[in-house]
């Protein structure tokens, strides 16, 4: 296994993030797959009419990677955007990729595609110089053409549709960010038209000839086992096929309604199980099951974090088709190669005997890292000998997918009279290690993540545990500020040495008007800041709190965000705003309620997500650092909103709420 470390300058020191660790955290498993291909042709192909096909294993889930990677190509290759076609996330066509996880598309894939495009540009210049026997320096390249004097040739004419095996040179010249013409600009979403016309086919929409629609019989409780099954009524229905392999039971039929009726006609008896924890007892359960033992609770202040659901609007879906011992699956997943491995393992086949294709997907937010629907579809398709479609319902998505982990976080600290933090101890049970480390300069701080058991299936989520860790850290920062009677902004600036952190705090508070804020009854103002995955965020919020009911309304928020050189300002703003809106849910009201091995909040009528009426005025300040490499932006803007709101509530009514969600 090749370890390629990457570095992030943090405060005065250097923090080393091992890519493998991040992948393990995101996916729950080790890295698989081979070396990154070096030849140009693995990444990019120029067709005979000059069309440029680019291959990447990344998926498009709304974060606009399809557009930003197109910008990378256009910037370096000098071809119009319309000539670029991105082939994304097809395991037979695209180089291996670990997955669209950890905000790594921009820092890792974007430069990779730029280098491939730049190498192709150099190759085209070489070909033109040879063709015309002219000095390479006399050539110009623009708009999909190479020109010299009066002569001009299109890329297609020069490339002859050949696959280029030349290696991408490590020193290939790249455009400086200050000179970018297409990168750094707001190129519109490249396939936006297909979305607004309904032409785009998501996995949920796909059909294959002769395909059956399938449903799976799930147990009434997590972990329940099948005792008996009567399939006779279902099998008597015309066209219905029943698949029964151990605990796995599924039905398939040509029409989806018949499938639903067949599922209802199955008579199953399940052996119940006793659940170890419910949504009330789970926080104690975390501490009791900590693998390394729990820290002494004495002077620590506990905060709790609820499990929440991703609720991607497109539920899990897959279509699977077997042909000659090879299975092809179309599915919405953030890890197509991970799903390929799951298929290979499940069916005992070589990885080349499984092909996974991910159409642009109806969102993920870290919630679609595995191949649940793909495996079910492939299994049923194999058993019935026909292509099978397996679309999850909303209830299935909210029960049988995985959740953002719940957690118990205990914290203590002290500040000197001048505001300098002198002690800091922070224990996170189960939420996760992302964003655990304080970005403030604190001597001798102690921060620990404790692995525990989880009563629910859990996994990645936008920002992972950085939201939980920032919520607790930034709430407790205000508790410490209060202990030394310092303004929250002043207190943060006192302890923030990292210039980039200071910049986002100052930019957010300036735009918000922090210093000029006017306190009125029932209104409160909060601030929070943070760092994660190479980018920085400062967030201010204004809330109103109903003095009788305690109901919170977020009125206004200002977010300052810095992720190095901005690749696409409009899409970045869209991500920042979207993260704030999504973060409002986890901050204020989202909470998975469960007990006796069942999810009580398994439908949208029972699980509230943010809607139009919940959205405050959102103002974003983008700090464009053209001197720094571009970092990802899909996750980090989410981490500041919950603590900013929590701090604003305290400012409004003096109540410190030490749980997420803040409203119950």
């Amino acid at each position, binding site marked *: 296994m090749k370890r390629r470390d990457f570095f992030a300058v943090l405060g005065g020191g250097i923090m080393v993030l091992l890519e493998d660790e991040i992948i393990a955290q995101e996916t729950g498993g080790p890295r698989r797959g081979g070396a990154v291909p070096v030849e140009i042709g693995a990444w990019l192909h120029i067709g005979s009419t000059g069309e440029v096909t680019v291959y990447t294993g990344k998926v498009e889930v709304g974060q606009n990677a399809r557009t930003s990677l197109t910008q990378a190509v256009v910037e370096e290759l000098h071809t119009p955007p319309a000539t670029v076609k991105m082939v994304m996330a097809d395991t037979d066509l695209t180089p291996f990729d670990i997955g669209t996880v950890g905000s790594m598309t921009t820092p890792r894939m974007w430069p990779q595609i730029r280098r491939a495009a730049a190498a192709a540009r150099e190759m085209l210049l070489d070909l033109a110089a040879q063709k015309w026997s002219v000095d390479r320096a006399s050539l110009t390249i623009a708009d999909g053409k190479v020109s010299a004097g009066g002569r001009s040739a299109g890329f297609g004419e020069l490339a002859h549709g050949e696959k280029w095996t030349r290696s991408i040179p490590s020193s290939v010249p790249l455009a400086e960010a200050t000179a970018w013409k297409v990168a750094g600009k707001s190129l519109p979403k490249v396939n936006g038209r297909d979305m*607004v016309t*309904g032409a785009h086919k998501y996995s949920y929409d796909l059909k294959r000839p002769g395909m059956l629609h399938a449903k799976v019989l799930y147990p009434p409780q997590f972990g329940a086992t099948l005792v008996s099954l009567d399939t006779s009524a279902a099998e008597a229905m015309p066209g219905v096929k029943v698949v029964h392999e151990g605990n796995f039971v599924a039905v398939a039929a040509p029409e989806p309604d018949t499938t639903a009726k067949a599922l209802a006609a199955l008579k199953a008896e399940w052996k119940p199980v006793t659940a170890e924890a419910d949504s009330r007892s789970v926080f104690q359960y975390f501490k009791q099951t900590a693998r390394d033992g729990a820290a002494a609770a004495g002077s620590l202040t506990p905060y709790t974090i609820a499990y929440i659901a991703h609720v991607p609007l497109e539920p899990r879906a897959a279509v699977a088709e077997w042909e000659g011992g090879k299975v092809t699956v179309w599915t919405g997943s953030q890890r197509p190669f991970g799903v390929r491995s799951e298929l290979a393992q499940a069916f005992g086949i070589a990885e080349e005997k499984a092909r996974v294709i991910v159409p642009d997907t109806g969102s993920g937010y870290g919630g679609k890292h595995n191949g649940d629907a793909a495996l079910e579809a492939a299994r049923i398709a194999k058993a019935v000998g026909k292509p099978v479609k397996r679309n999850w319902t909303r209830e299935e998505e909210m029960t049988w997918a995985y959740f953002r982990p719940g957690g118990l976080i205990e914290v203590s600290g002290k500040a000197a009279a001048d505001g300098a933090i002198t002690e800091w101890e922070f224990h996170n049970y189960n939420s996760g290690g992302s964003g655990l480390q304080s970005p403030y300069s604190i001597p001798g701080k102690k921060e620990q993540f404790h692995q525990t058991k989880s009563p629910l299936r859990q996994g990645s989520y936008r920002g992972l545990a950085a939201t939980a860790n920032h919520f607790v850290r930034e709430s407790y920062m205000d508790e410490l500020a209060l202990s030394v009677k310092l303004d929250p902004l002043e207190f943060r600036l006192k302890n923030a040495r990292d210039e980039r952190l200071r910049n986002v705090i100052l930019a957010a508070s300036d735009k918000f008007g922090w210093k000029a804020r006017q306190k009125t009854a029932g209104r409160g103002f909060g601030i929070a800041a943070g760092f994660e995955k190479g980018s920085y965020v400062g967030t201010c919020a204004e809330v109103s709190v109903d003095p009788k009911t305690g109901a919170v309304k977020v009125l206004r928020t200002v977010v300052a965000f810095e992720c190095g050189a901005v690749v696409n300002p409009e899409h970045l703003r869209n991500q920042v*705003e979207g993260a704030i809106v999504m973060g409002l849910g986890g901050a204020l009201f989202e909470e998975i309620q469960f007990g006796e091995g069942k999810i009580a909040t398994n439908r949208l009528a029972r699980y509230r997500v943010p809607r139009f009426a919940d959205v405050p005025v959102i103002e974003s300040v983008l700090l464009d650092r053209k001197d720094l490499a571009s970092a990802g932006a899909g996750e980090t803007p989410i981490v500041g909103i919950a603590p900013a709101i929590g701090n604003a509530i305290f400012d409004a009514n003096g109540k410190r709420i030490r749980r997420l969600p803040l409203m119950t």
Partner: protein
Amino acid sequence: MARVTELLVNGGRRRIDADSDRTLLSVLRDDLDLTGTKFGCGEGQCAACTVLVDGTATKACITKVGAMAGKRIVTIEGLAPEGKLHPVQQAFLDADALQCGYCTPGMILGAVALLGRTPNPSEAEIVSGMNGHICRCGTYPRVVHAIRSAAGKGGLA
């Protein structure tokens, strides 16, 4: 079981053969391959399945196809039949009012219906009129902007 044999969809008569108690959403998607109408929740909570029925925004996932006799249905595929985008579609693109796009067809048809009954809505009217639609990517402020912009340009259906 009563059968439904015809639907008026996107300006044409479409032959179908469906139980009258099937959902309009299933018939549109599975029988007529009009998959621009999305499944999001199946309980009328997210409005991703919104279509226009005689000009009114209707959640197809909780509407029986048996109730559609003689009614004119417009899906997202019928909004720009000649390839020229409807002003609301164009406004969504101009405002970058989408990320993954899964809620977008329902949002657009909800907006068209809203502008049909309130040609020049205030921000509060847009928020209350669209509050049944869920966008998990959080593009709500941009959708509000797009609808206001379309209203200014005569975004009537």
